[in-house]
């Protein structure tokens, strides 16, 4: 279920609109494969580039960083994007879901968007970056050494180290300059992809330049798509409530701007229901518990559909669980990024088999954080944080606020009054909901995998889209269910990008990154010299 009124991207925004003032339903768009003549008949200026990446977010950035190391130039790789800085969409989603600039995110020290090598990690960089620590209020030698000491011990007796979101932004800023990122950009929104009869692809896009909203076309040999999430996703009953009662103030999505909720709770107190038991839900709960600790008179009712009582699985497959939550450091077991789990996925040919592994090892889970555990305990004991397990039957207006009818496992129902409901269950990732991807499914030859996402092969080439010597690759959330479980994470995007770069190198499109090139390029990175 998606909310078509909400947009998540800071750039041109909604990727789901289905009509457009200028695009048109030009008759040639009904053709799946275009000749050069078709492209000209479309009536838009045609430019060309060896490779085009669509998105310009974290995925496109990781990919471009690697291709530059593999010897390509800003001229070879053009990026169609609705944002200027690759982390803008990520930053917005973080901010809304309560990860401000100096809050810790959820990936490890070695997941660095500006550095494919993973060395020196964010922990070491934090130790040596005094300016950063000062801005984050982490002064003193102990606090400087803590990150490095932590990665040496983790996760034995300490929680995993994770960088602050501002570290990610700052490192991307530096790398953007080094790569001359603006030189790669074609600011705009991609609308359609068509295979070119003579090989390669045409991408129709709407430039961002608002004065001349005329479509343009880029012709390229290869295409790369990393467009993130199409939009917000609401639980069906909450979506129904929002549409039926036109109330998007009391019922909000964790990923949309919803500061009014905290403002009102701080000023007047009240009750808030949090739905979901994953990373976003716990962050929202944490924010609310912090506000409570700072004096807000609020009560949190945390609604669980699946309540994880204790550890699950057995023998070699046991995941920790407690108080409703399943625990693991990151969204997948670490080995998903290149160890045993990665190998297992690569070996699993059946899409259903891969989906099953993804459900078992991923799914809804949170990391263990000492501070969170402490405030959860305090909230449970003090009664201002309550947990409730059950299925929501209906949500109706409560004058004021909302009333949720919750049916618990034993069959009894109860009504919960709340001033606000925050849906922390997720973002939309169905490619059908994304205008460009839906078009790719209809006209580009792409198909759907066992998890309902774009079907890609082991090199992230979208199956069915090959066009002569041209290849179309996709990475990120749209390709979940492929051969890399954690593809929607920094390191997953990098790993996927490396696999794509290797595939391109095999075709002679770029250089293969061997030990000498790798070391020399790292040295350039270390000195902040262009690749």
């Amino acid at each position, binding site marked *: 279920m998606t909310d078509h009124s909400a947009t998540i991207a800071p750039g041109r925004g909604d990727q789901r609109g289905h009509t457009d003032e200028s695009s048109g339903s030009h008759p040639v768009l009904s053709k799946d494969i275009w000749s050069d003549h078709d492209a000209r008949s479309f009536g838009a200026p045609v430019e060309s580039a060896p490779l085009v990446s669509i998105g310009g977010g974290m995925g496109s950035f990781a990919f471009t960083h690697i291709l530059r190391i593999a010897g390509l130039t800003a001229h070879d790789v053009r990026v169609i994007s609705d944002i200027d800085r690759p982390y803008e969409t990520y930053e917005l989603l973080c901010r809304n879901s309560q990860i401000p600039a100096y809050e810790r995110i959820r990936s490890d020290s*070695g997941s660095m968007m500006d550095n*494919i*090598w*993973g*060395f*020196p990690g964010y922990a070491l960089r934090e130790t040596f970056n005094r300016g950063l620590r000062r801005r984050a209020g982490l002064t003193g030698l102990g606090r400087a050494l803590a990150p490095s000491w932590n*990665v*040496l*011990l*983790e*996760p*034995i007796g300490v929680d995993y180290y994770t960088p602050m979101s501002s570290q990610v932004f700052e490192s991307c800023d530096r790398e953007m300059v080094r790569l001359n990122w603006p030189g790669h950009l074609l600011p705009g929104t991609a609308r359609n992809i068509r295979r070119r009869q003579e090989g390669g692809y045409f991408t129709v896009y709407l430039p961002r330049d608002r004065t001349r909203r005329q479509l343009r076309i880029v012709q390229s040999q290869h295409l790369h798509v990393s467009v993130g999430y199409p939009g917000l996703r609401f639980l069906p009953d909450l979506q129904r409530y929002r549409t039926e009662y036109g109330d998007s103030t009391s019922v909000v999505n964790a990923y949309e701007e919803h500061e009014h909720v905290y403002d009102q709770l701080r000023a007047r107190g009240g009750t808030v229901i949090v739905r979901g038991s994953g990373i976003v839900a716990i962050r929202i709960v944490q924010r609310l518990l912090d506000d409570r600790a700072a004096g807000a008179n609020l009560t949190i009712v945390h609604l669980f559909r699946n309540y994880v009582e204790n550890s699950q699985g057995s023998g*070699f*497959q*046991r*995941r*920790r669980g407690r108080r409703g939550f399943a625990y*693991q*450091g990151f969204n997948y*077991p*670490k*080995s998903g*990024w*290149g*160890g*045993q*789990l*990665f*190998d297992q996925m690569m070996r699993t040919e059946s899409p259903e088999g891969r989906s099953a592994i993804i459900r078992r090892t991923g799914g809804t889970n949170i990391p263990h954080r000492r501070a969170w555990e402490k405030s959860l305990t305090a909230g449970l004991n003090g009664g201002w944080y309550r947990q409730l397990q059950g299925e929501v039957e209906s949500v109706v207006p409560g004058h004021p606020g909302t009333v949720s009818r919750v049916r618990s496992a034993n069959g009894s129902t109860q009504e919960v009054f709340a001033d606000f409901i925050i849906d922390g269950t997720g973002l939309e990732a169905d490619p059908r909901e994304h205008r460009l991807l839906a078009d790719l499914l209809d006209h580009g030859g792409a198909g759907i995998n066992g998890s309902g996402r774009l079907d890609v092969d082991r090199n992230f080439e979208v199956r069915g889209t090959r066009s002569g010597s041209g290849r179309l690759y996709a990475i990120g959330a749209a390709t979940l269910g492929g051969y890399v479980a954690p593809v929607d994470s920094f390191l997953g995007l990098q*790993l996927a990008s*490396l696999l794509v770069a290797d595939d391109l190198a095999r075709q002679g499109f770029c250089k293969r*990154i061997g*030990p000498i090139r*790798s*070391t020399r390029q*790292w040295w350039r990175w270390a000195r902040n010299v262009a690749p």
Partner: protein
Amino acid sequence: MIPTLRGRLQTRLFAVIVIGGVCTALVTPLLPGFPPGTPVSERYVDTFSVLAAVLVLGIFWEFVYHFLQQFRWEKDWPTLFGLLTFANEVLLVWFALRLGWVPNIESLPPARLWITHFVIVWIVIFGFLNGPMKVVFIRWRFRGGRLVGP
């Protein structure tokens, strides 16, 4: 690290033979504890024999570690373990030396000689694997520690 069994074995071979080898070649002339007047060639025979023992016993250890790793949900091998395993490995090498299992070495060499050697090699390998290795071999960390093969 998130090693696979094959990755462990390949990394062990590479680390001990290449890094340990270079390291041993460099430090042998400087190591303390050789009887005065021992020719350099004999010193090298001694240190490389100890290194060979570390390699052979290490392969055995990798199987043990791989088994232990299965108890971890993450199927990872925390950095700390890379330091702690120093203890069991040095102990086994000591046994091997004492029992005369190590070719070319009849009796237990002085502790300050072989332990100094062992510690230096260990630290250099540990440092290399946690940093420069990833720079030189860009795919290593994504391939469970494998350097060659599928």
